């Protein structure tokens, strides 16, 4: 392994292609931390955005007009404003209103750190799209299926949980897939509030080593691979969950 790392040092000396995140153990650690942070941020946001989508779509089918209005207001507000401004709004505006808590070192720290705010903001952003996606899937479930469930005495929650959602889920997987890919790409915004994710760490490295070109190309490839892994996984899942007799 050491020899492999050393090879990149030789590559730098010979050709000038500088990849310090491979041969330099400190930069390597930073880059791996950044990658790990991006993955962590993506996974946590994926989870919460899907949860928001499921709950939001359920609330949208509610019998109360104001519940539906509230959910729709949330969707329109988050869909039609820039995610970066949302992030700033959450982090700077709402973050500054929250009380500060004492840290173990005797100092004061905000109640929620930048990672937490990035998760909240990005989840709400992607969640707004997910609600619409889930709603379209629920509408695609034949009315007669729901009526059959009603006839069998299922409650509204049971119908949603056991009948509508499993069927809708299969319909919406392609659209959900698309949105989740977008979410992974949007995690780069966390850079703006100094969450040490991949773009942030790459920026640190290129500031130290003045190798913007190499880092940029590496970043593009890294995100390409990350998104590729997600798409590959989702496509496999899509195939596994396919309802026989539907689609091509």
């Amino acid at each position: 392994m050491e020899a492999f790392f050393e090879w990149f040092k030789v590559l730098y000396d010979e050709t000038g292609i500088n990849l310090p995140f491979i041969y330099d153990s400190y930069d390597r650690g930073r880059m791996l931390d950044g990658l790990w942070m991006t993955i962590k941020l993506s996974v946590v946001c994926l989870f919460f955005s899907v949860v928001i989508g499921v709950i939001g779509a359920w609330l949208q089918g509610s019998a109360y007009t104001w519940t539906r209005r509230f959910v729709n207001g949330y969707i329109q507000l988050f869909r039609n404003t820039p995610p970066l401004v949302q992030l700033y709004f959450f982090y700077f505006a709402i973050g500054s209103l929250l009380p500060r808590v004492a840290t173990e070192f005797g100092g004061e720290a905000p109640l929620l750190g930048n990672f937490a705010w990035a998760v909240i903001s990005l989840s709400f952003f992607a969640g707004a799209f997910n609600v619409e996606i889930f709603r379209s899937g629920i509408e695609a479930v034949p009315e007669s299926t729901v009526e059959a469930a009603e006839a069998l005495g299922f409650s509204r929650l049971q119908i949603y949980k056991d009948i509508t959602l499993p069927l809708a889920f299969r319909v919406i997987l392609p659209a959900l897939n698309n949105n989740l890919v977008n979410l992974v790409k949007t995690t780069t915004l966390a850079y703006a509030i100094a969450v040490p994710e991949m773009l942030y760490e790459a920026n640190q490295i290129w500031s130290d080593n003045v190798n913007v070109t190499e880092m940029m190309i590496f970043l593009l490839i890294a995100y390409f691979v990350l998104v590729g892994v997600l798409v590959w996984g989702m496509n496999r899942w899509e195939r596994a969950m396919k309802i026989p007799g539907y689609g091509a």
Partner: protein
Amino acid sequence: MTTRNYKTDLPVMMPVDGKPKNRPRFRLKLWHGAVLLGICLLSPTLSFAQSDAGQASVLEVLLRWMPLLLKGFIFNLVISVFAMAIGTGVGAMLGLGQISLHGWVRKLAWAITQFFRNSPWLVLLFFAMFLLPFQLRIGGVTIPLPDWLKAIIGLSLPVMANVSEIVRGAVTSLPSGQWEAAESLAYSRRQTLWLVILPQCVKRMLPPWMNLYSILTMATVLASIVGVSEVMTLTGQALAAEGGRTDLLAPFYSFVLIIFFIYCYPIARWTVYLEKKFAVKG
């Protein structure tokens, strides 16, 4: 979604509670946007109540900076229009490349599209910002490349890839009968494409294209991260100039949210309207 109206008085056909049980579905009206705006506009007034007596009120400060912020927003719009124009032009060619008859053109166009579609917008923006030279020398003429021009180029890259996919999707969504009919009328491939296929595609491409424009407009704030003085940068500077008062943060950021909402929401509404209008009844 179909609604059932039971045209019978047989008791067995009636729902238990006696009313036809239409599952309620909420359609967003324009005035709902107004309600949301009202809520957002209320938040500055609320924090106005919190501010100290010695300082200028929040509303006053906001009004003072508003012309500058709106100028910044117009700059955002300029960036978005130019990035959209460049992205659409190049993207349309790339999309046509994706349906080319030459295998290698198709593969190349596909690879470029996928590459730029799967990279984060912010990374592409950094890419354009740092890797383009600050001036170009063609022959004896020096063309300066200011930051905002680089931002336009950086933002037009993902737009280009998305437009390419929109074009390809629209062309492949047409029934193959259209191609065959044109062929039987002895149209050449170019004639088929220009006279038969693309005119039908425009209708299909318009809603996703507008959607993309809306996304692009919202992405123009990313240029603030790389130092273009658009609305977000100016907001930060205005806040700094006011001495970092924390009670100003929420109103200023909500103001930025609101102006984007006012601009993007009608576009979204219009897109939905067009989608419905162009929808093929199935």
